[in-house]
């Protein structure tokens, strides 16, 4: 175990607030609870966001107060943060005595902006360990306000470019926050294959590097430090391994990983291979588990306990869950950007596949990313394109020479399949499908 070895038994430091400050927070939490109840009763959703919003209006420091005093492990990155948060929370839970499971709080529903995080924390005032999925845009505030013990940085790829114009700006915000935090900052668990993560984490006090064996490298062309074109050393085309990246212009290079993924196994610091035996599918989830394992170890969980815990995770926030639509049984998969689609398409195992597309704010309003996804691999399957932007997909598939049927209405697209179908969806239709399928 690393130099920051910790023990899970160590409690958080109880919150010390002045009476006035405490009263204000209590009032905020109470009002937030009421707003969330109203939201739920009126069918407007889980109320996580409105709860956080109301709390923050009454006590602008609510998030900072709710974060302080807890032992925090934060998880961020473009893809996989919800699943990794669930894996990490399960790993830590496995390390706690069953009677102390209430020590842990997590935003399991994926509400990962300021309001969503505040909302989750407000509902567990006594939990002293917080495992928090954190949106990329919130990472800097999380470091500043929450002083996390561990920060997992999974990956950095193009996503919702209509909102995040320059991914490097986000990476810079992480880098600056880590630098400002200095010795009070988190130990970073970083994906060594991601140049932007490596660059951002250069300012961290300590990093545990993980090699996740990712095959997506479209967003790792230029050196984030000096702008030179990165080169690849020792690629292995047979396994799809792009090789280690290295900058010819400066000293930024792929760091040696202490935990790595190899042939679906997680190789730990001592070189021991573990078969993760996860219930969530896909090689990328083995990479996520490797990162979660490293973070769990830093929080004081043993490797064996962590793995045992992660094996209990099956459908984080509805991902990979099986839903029913009338007589149809469907497995729901989520992909939010080209890297996500690249990872998810090979998992589609049924002969009929439903692809659901929208392009409202939560999905990213520009669908051009579809053309970076290799839909050609779907040839031979019976494809149904659904969702408000199904026609955009139909054109993409036409140019891939993969015939499809366009059925814009989600319910109609899912109706009457005699055999199980896999459904792959962007964010907004995914949430609608969870509801329609009785999962949310």
């Amino acid at each position, binding site marked *: 175990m690393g130099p920051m070895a910790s023990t899970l038994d160590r409690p958080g430091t109880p919150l010390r607030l002045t009476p006035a400050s405490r009263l204000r927070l209590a009032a905020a939490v109470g009002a937030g609870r009421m707003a969330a109840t109203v939201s739920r009763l009126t069918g407007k959703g889980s109320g996580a966001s409105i709860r956080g919003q109301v709390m923050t209006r009454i006590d602008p420091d609510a998030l900072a107060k709710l974060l302080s005093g807890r032992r925090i492990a934060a998880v961020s990155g473009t893809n996989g943060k919800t699943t990794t948060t669930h894996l990490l929370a399960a790993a830590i839970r496995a390390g706690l005595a069953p009677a102390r499971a209430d020590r842990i709080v997590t935003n399991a529903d994926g509400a990962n902006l300021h309001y969503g995080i505040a909302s989750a924390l407000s509902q567990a005032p006594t939990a002293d360990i917080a495992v928090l999925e954190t949106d990329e845009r919130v990472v800097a505030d999380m470091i500043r306000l929450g002083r996390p013990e561990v920060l997992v940085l999974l990956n950095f790829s*193009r996503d919702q*470019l*209509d909102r995040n*114009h*320059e*991914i*490097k700006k986000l990476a810079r915000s992480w880098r600056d926050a880590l630098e400002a935090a200095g010795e009070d900052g988190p130990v970073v668990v970083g994906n060594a294959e991601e140049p932007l993560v490596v660059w951002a984490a250069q300012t961290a006090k300590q990093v545990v590097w993980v090699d996740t064996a990712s095959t997506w490298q*479209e*967003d790792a*062309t*230029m050196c984030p430090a000096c*702008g*030179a*074109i990165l080169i690849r050393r020792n690629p292995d085309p047979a396994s799809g391994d792009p090789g280690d990246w290295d900058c010819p212009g400066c000293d930024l290079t792929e760091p040696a990983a202490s935990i790595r993924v190899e042939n679906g196994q997680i190789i730990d610091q001592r070189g021991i291979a573990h078969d993760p035996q996860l219930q969530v599918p896909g090689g990328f989830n083995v990479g996520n588990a490797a990162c979660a394992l490293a973070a769990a170890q830093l929080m004081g969980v043993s490797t064996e306990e962590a793995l045992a815990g992660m094996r209990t995770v099956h459908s984080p926030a509805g991902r990979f869950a099986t839903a029913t639509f009338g007589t149809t049984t469907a497995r729901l998969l989520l992909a939010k950007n*080209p890297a996500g689609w690249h990872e998810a398409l090979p998992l589609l195992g049924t002969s009929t596949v439903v692809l659901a597309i929208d392009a409202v704010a939560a999905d990213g*309003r*520009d*669908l*051009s*990313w*579809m*053309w*970076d996804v290799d839909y050609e691999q779907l040839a031979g399957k019976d494809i149904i394109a659904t969702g408000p932007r199904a*026609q*955009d997909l*139909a*054109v*993409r598939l*036409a*140019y891939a*020479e993969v015939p499809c049927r*366009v059925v814009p209405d989600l319910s109609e697209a899912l109706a009457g399949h005699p055999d199980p179908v896999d459904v792959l969806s962007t964010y907004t239709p995914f949430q609608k499908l969870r509801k329609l399928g009785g999962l949310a």
Partner: protein
Amino acid sequence: MTRPVHIVLVYQSLLGIYGDRGNATVLTKRLQWRGIENTLTVAEPGDPLPDDADLYLLGGGEDGAQTTAVRLLTEEGTLHRAAERGSVVFGVCAGYQILGTTFTVGEMDRVMPGLGLLDVSTRRGTTRAVGEVLTRLRPLPGDVSPLAGDDALVTGFENHGGFTTLGADALPLADVEIGIGNGDATRTEGAIQGSVIGTYPHGPVLARNPALADFLLETALGHRLDPLPRPEIDKLRQERIGTIRRSSRG
């Protein structure tokens, strides 16, 4: 033309963050569907660009990528020779901006030299232009039967912070109906100068606008192409054009 039509996708990994590689997919498929032989070269930084191609495509990218691309393309010079001999050079978004004489990068608006193949210059605008855009193609130089009605409409998604001003040698490609486009006072979009063409919309633009795709191919080939009816594209165009017009009224 007896040899295959040769298309080059320039520095996809630098100038390809907005799916603009789809423009290459669209062009090669539209040739293939008509039985016209073609080859596609995906040239990455460090590879020499083929010197004999008919069409060169550049897509969108971030500031840093733009600067690096200009440096590499200036050093190696293929695009300049291509433009001189009349091969088609087609740039989208950042790819459009770097074809110009200057553009600005960073918060400090540092002025960078472009490739100088289009007489346009770009500087940071007052706001960022993000959203669906609808423009109408102007009659293109040398086109004896210019597009009319809805066929001349270009639909796409723009996402750029730079606003572009045309100099005397460049002609506007289109007039803006809805959206920002070049962001200049004349409400134009894109630019054309000889066989060099720049435009802002992604989508990718050629997937959503087959007439523009065929114009590029016809310019490269030097002759007209047969129509290629694709109902799914017509339907998408109707959908996108209808939606943007309705939302701009609301």
